[in-house]
């Protein structure tokens, strides 16, 4: 059976081996050229960075943008075909695409907005650094 799958995979060169199991998530790219840190570092350590920044903001009033959750959701916002922003409950949302694959559940978006907000009276992204 495994040999058979392998044969098919080799036949359709474009398919990766993981797709025979659970399809790999399709992760949308953020705006701009690069993330706030090296991409592979972000893949591994993003949770530590944002959770550290969370305490820095809450207790010390530090409001830098690099690790701010607001910036992640703004720069990584994904739109659907109608041009509306996709919410975190949808697997196409940047954070959810990967988390649903890795079976990670986060509660952040019960309180934090998961899209750039039109209801905001202030711009979520401050101009410049």
């Amino acid at each position, binding site marked *: 059976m495994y040999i058979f799958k392998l044969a098919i995979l080799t036949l359709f060169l474009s398919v990766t081996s993981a797709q025979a199991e659970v399809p790999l998530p399709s992760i949308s790219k953020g705006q701009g050229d690069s993330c706030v840190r090296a991409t592979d570092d972000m893949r591994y350590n993003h949770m530590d960075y944002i959770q550290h920044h969370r305490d820095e903001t809450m*207790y*010390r009033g530090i*409001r830098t943008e690099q690790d701010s959750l607001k910036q992640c959701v703004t720069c990584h916002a994904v739109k659907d075909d109608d041009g509306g922003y996709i919410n975190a409950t949808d697997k196409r949302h940047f954070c959810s695409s990967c988390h649903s694959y890795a079976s990670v559940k986060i509660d952040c978006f*019960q309180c*934090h*907005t998961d899209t750039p907000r039109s209801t*905001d009276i202030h711009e*979520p992204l401050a101009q410049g650094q």
Partner: protein
Amino acid sequence: MSEKEQVNLTRRNLLGGTAAAMAGLTIAPGIILVETAQAKPKDQPVTDAVRWGILININNCADDCTGCVDACQEENGWGKGSSDESKSRPDQKAQWIRKVKVTDRETGHAKTLPMMCQHCESPPCVDVCPTGASYKRIDGIVLVDKHICIGCRYCMMACPYKARSFIHETLTDQRSYAPRGQGTVESCTMCVHRVDDDQQPACVEACSSTFNSAMIFGDLNDPESKISKELARHGGVRIRADLGLNPGVRYQGIYG
């Protein structure tokens, strides 16, 4: 966050605070560091050189005006500023600031005033919190760290000003800078996101720009700030001063 940065509230501090409150309106004894947090760069921590406060002159506060309440709702996305909380009863809904009517029973003189978190120096909500979610920031702003709030509501019961609310249902239309969610307690944050950005709280701004200029926001530790000068010149009272909590919100025009 290290232990040191959490404001250390001991019984001794509380007693000391009481004595200071009773001595009257001594605001900052000793040397005063005029290190204005106003120009705080985004990557610098807040310091205890400042203590934020609000002074409200209720004689300027029009009885039918709800400008501060409306501005707070719009800014922080609760009440009229939100389409959520539709299943909650009116008395269950969030209320960060409200207009309260005070009547002198003897003379019958009645006046309204805005009531919100009084940002106590010795906050009872912080004392009773079992998880440490209720805390006082080093610059005097009393907050809930909703990340560790378990929704027990002890703080709501402990607060003599009835300033806190509990969120009973799922919310969806929060502001990005004012996250709120089911199962946690919330209250006036003195618009901490604005204060850190060198702005005044939304209520104060609305009151001074559009309405009656009944509110002054500023640094109680700085004798040169508008609020300190006004307090030095005309005084101001702490509501329930007998509790010795030394609130950062002071009022003018209320007696006894």
